[in-house]
């Protein structure tokens, strides 16, 4: 009896496989197989986004380090301006990296050491005074380093530049701390980039559809970044979306320099747009276009339209988000809502089309 069943099953399975070999049957997909499409996408992400973006960030950090060492040797207005310029350039390139919290970056908690704001002035001052920087390895001191710490050190020590310069001239501790922070940013970034040269192979070969495969993790990271790093950190939290009606100008990105918060947000918007559309190569957009049901065939353009609306809305804000919040925070609330409409699209329609296992939800279904 058992033998009969086994034989029958075998015949049945053979039948199914032979059917599946039929070339003439209508296929809803493009000629490339799903595997091929996924691996094209992963290669595009690794080689045209992740690696070059980390490299350009690292280059900018090296230039910044140089300006800082010049400034530390001879603190003056021109050198301070150069440091500030280098900081902004590096900060802009950071916007193209923040969403890639995957692999070596995730393992080393790299992101938490680069851009947690608002920065902790108390912690910074404590470390500056003590000269012992080992606490920076611990998570409570995440907000005492990275770009937000530099923001404070370059703009926040005093209202006017000459006092800032004299602080550095007089107090070697500030010079040391400044050098320490850029050093750590460089070594942390180099470490991640170095590891990526090995990790890349794993990354692009993990093309299956599981919660831990690269495309799924990266898509989740992308959505998470849009929702948290972009939507909440840059807009929602400062405008008080999550707190009972209080506005928090001091929680905007680059609070001390004040004039660049919009610039950084627009760079981030651009990074999101580029990543989604793939910059001419295989991306989430192509994947959506190939797999969307008829009802959802407009989804990728709908998402792009929403990105455009968000961009336009951000452009309409004051270049200094602190001013915006102090004069007309409701306008920023509107921008938040436009961005939020994008979150809804990404987290419902896009996930429905992509059919990827979201996050690490590990449970049986039925």
């Amino acid at each position, binding site marked *: 009896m058992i033998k009969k069943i086994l034989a029958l099953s075998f015949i049945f399975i053979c039948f199914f496989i032979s059917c599946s070999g039929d070339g003439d049957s*209508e296929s809803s997909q493009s000629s490339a197989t799903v595997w091929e499409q996924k691996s094209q996408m992963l290669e595009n992400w690794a080689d045209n986004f992740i690696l070059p973006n980390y490299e350009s960030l690292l280059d900018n950090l090296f230039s910044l380090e140089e300006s800082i060492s010049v400034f530390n040797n001879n603190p003056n207005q021109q050198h301070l301006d150069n440091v500030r310029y280098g900081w902004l350039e590096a900060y802009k390139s950071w916007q193209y990296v923040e969403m890639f919290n995957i692999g070596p970056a995730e393992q080393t908690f790299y992101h938490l050491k680069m851009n947690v704001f608002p920065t902790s002035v108390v912690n910074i001052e404590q470390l500056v005074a003590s000269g012992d920087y080992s606490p920076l390895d611990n998570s409570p001191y995440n907000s005492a380093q990275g770009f937000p710490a530099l923001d404070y050190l370059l703009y926040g020590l005093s209202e006017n530049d000459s006092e800032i310069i004299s602080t550095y001239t007089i107090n070697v501790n500030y010079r040391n701390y400044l050098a320490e922070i850029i050093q750590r940013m460089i070594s942390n970034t180099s470490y991640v980039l170095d590891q990526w040269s090995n990790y890349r192979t794993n990354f692009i070969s993990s093309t299956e559809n599981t919660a831990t495969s690269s495309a799924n993790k990266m898509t989740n990271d992308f959505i998470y970044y849009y929702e948290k790093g972009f939507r909440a950190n840059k807009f929602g939290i400062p405008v008080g979306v999550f707190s*009972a009606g209080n506005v928090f100008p001091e929680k905007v990105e680059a609070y001390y320099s004040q004039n660049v918060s919009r610039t950084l947000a627009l760079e981030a918007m651009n990074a999101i747009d580029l990543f989604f559309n793939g910059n001419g190569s295989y991306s989430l957009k192509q994947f959506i276009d190939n797999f969307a049901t008829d009802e959802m065939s407009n989804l990728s353009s709908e998402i792009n339209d929403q990105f455009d609306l968000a961009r336009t809305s951000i452009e309409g804000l004051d270049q200094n988000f602190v001013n915006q919040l102090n004069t007309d925070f409701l306008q920023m609330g509107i921008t938040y809502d436009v961005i939020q409409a994008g979150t809804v699209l990404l987290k419902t329609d896009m996930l429905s089309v*992509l059919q990827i296992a979201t996050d690490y939800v590990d449970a049986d279904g039925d």
Partner: protein
Amino acid sequence: MISNINIYLKKSTESSKLAVFRICFGLLMLYSMVRFWSKNWIHTIYVEPKFHFKYYGFEWIQSLGSFTYALFIICIICSILITLGLWYRLSIIVFFLSFTYIELIEKTTYLNHYYFVSLLSFVLIFLPASSCFSIDSILKKKQYSQVPKWTTDSIKLLMIIVYFYAGLAKINSDWLLEALPLKIWMPSKYDIPLIGETFLQYEWVHYLMSWGGMLYDLTIPFLLLNKRTRMIGFFLVLFFHLFTAILFPIGMFPYIMILSALVFFDGQTHDKIIKLLKRPISVFMKKSKAVIIEKLSTFEYKRPKLILITLAIFFLVQIVVPFRYVLYPSELFWSEEGYRFSWRVMLVEKIGYTTFKIKNKDTGVIFEAPCTNMLTKVQTKQMSFQADMILEFAHYLGDYYKKQGLHNIAVFANSYVTLNGRPKEQFIDPSIDLLSIEESFKHKVWIIPYKYDIKGF
């Protein structure tokens, strides 16, 4: 009519059927429990969450925290005892109670096959499944070769209900006319060897699977009942459930259904299975003293009427409950009013995204509740598209903020859901203060009606 019933109730069948069923059930439950534990789900589902979603009417069920492990240990011990047929009646009662208690702790993990296990263990309480090939029969020095036929038939009936209703539910426009949601799911299974890249990518395959699945569910009970088609039926059971086991993360369900289907086979087959099982045991038994067991013919209940009435009511409820959805005017797949406990499996692909706004009614200030840390990912995922859970969580948020000193508040939900690949629609009326609404069996008017119409059962 009545005499027919009486004749039927006097019919008997081989007790080996129940013994084999008991052993399979015990072993499967043992494995399920150990598997659940080994995946650390006891922690992530029952211990870790700060808040548990409760079934309506069962809000009094307390989560036991770390003591949930004890509940699982009890279930494991009971499974072993059930397998051995030792203190059977007590162990199946305790198993039913502890297993059901576990399921009632957290609603977001509702699965039809857990519900099936609860129901099955309830039915098993009333069946003499340890009347042969059990330690009980050795201890009592009594074994019965026959049991009333209605005992095995009640297991069959439960399975027939499950299959038939599952099939009925598949008769809807999405499943049959659009091959949804299989059309969405199958292309994403490209990583399954051999068939993933080829077979599963074709649209005609999605239709074949949809129609095949519906026909399978509707006909399989009859194929198994009829002696002449039983072999082909069981072969289909094997094929269907193993195939779905490969395709979907459905845990133990396929194996439970496959082994349960054995109950449809005749007594000879079961006698053979028991002979097979006896072989390794007899090697061990030779060393001990042979026990003389009195061999009796038919097991007789002390109070058969009470048990028959209990089971009759039970099955009546089972037959009626899946149809309760007709009492609600809303689109069933969208609102899920009357969706659970009805053997609706694999019918919808849903993704939801729900955020909550808190309004301070004294000041008019509105803010979004940052609730990501309050729920686990599994809970968030499930809550986001199920209205009763959204309501329950809204009340939890209300209590939370009241404790924070905000007494006069309203809670609103911004909820969007995609259903079977259609673009997202707003799910909950965002202007309704959910704190003003209490859970009930009444139609939820605060669910925005779905703009699409899905026809069928």
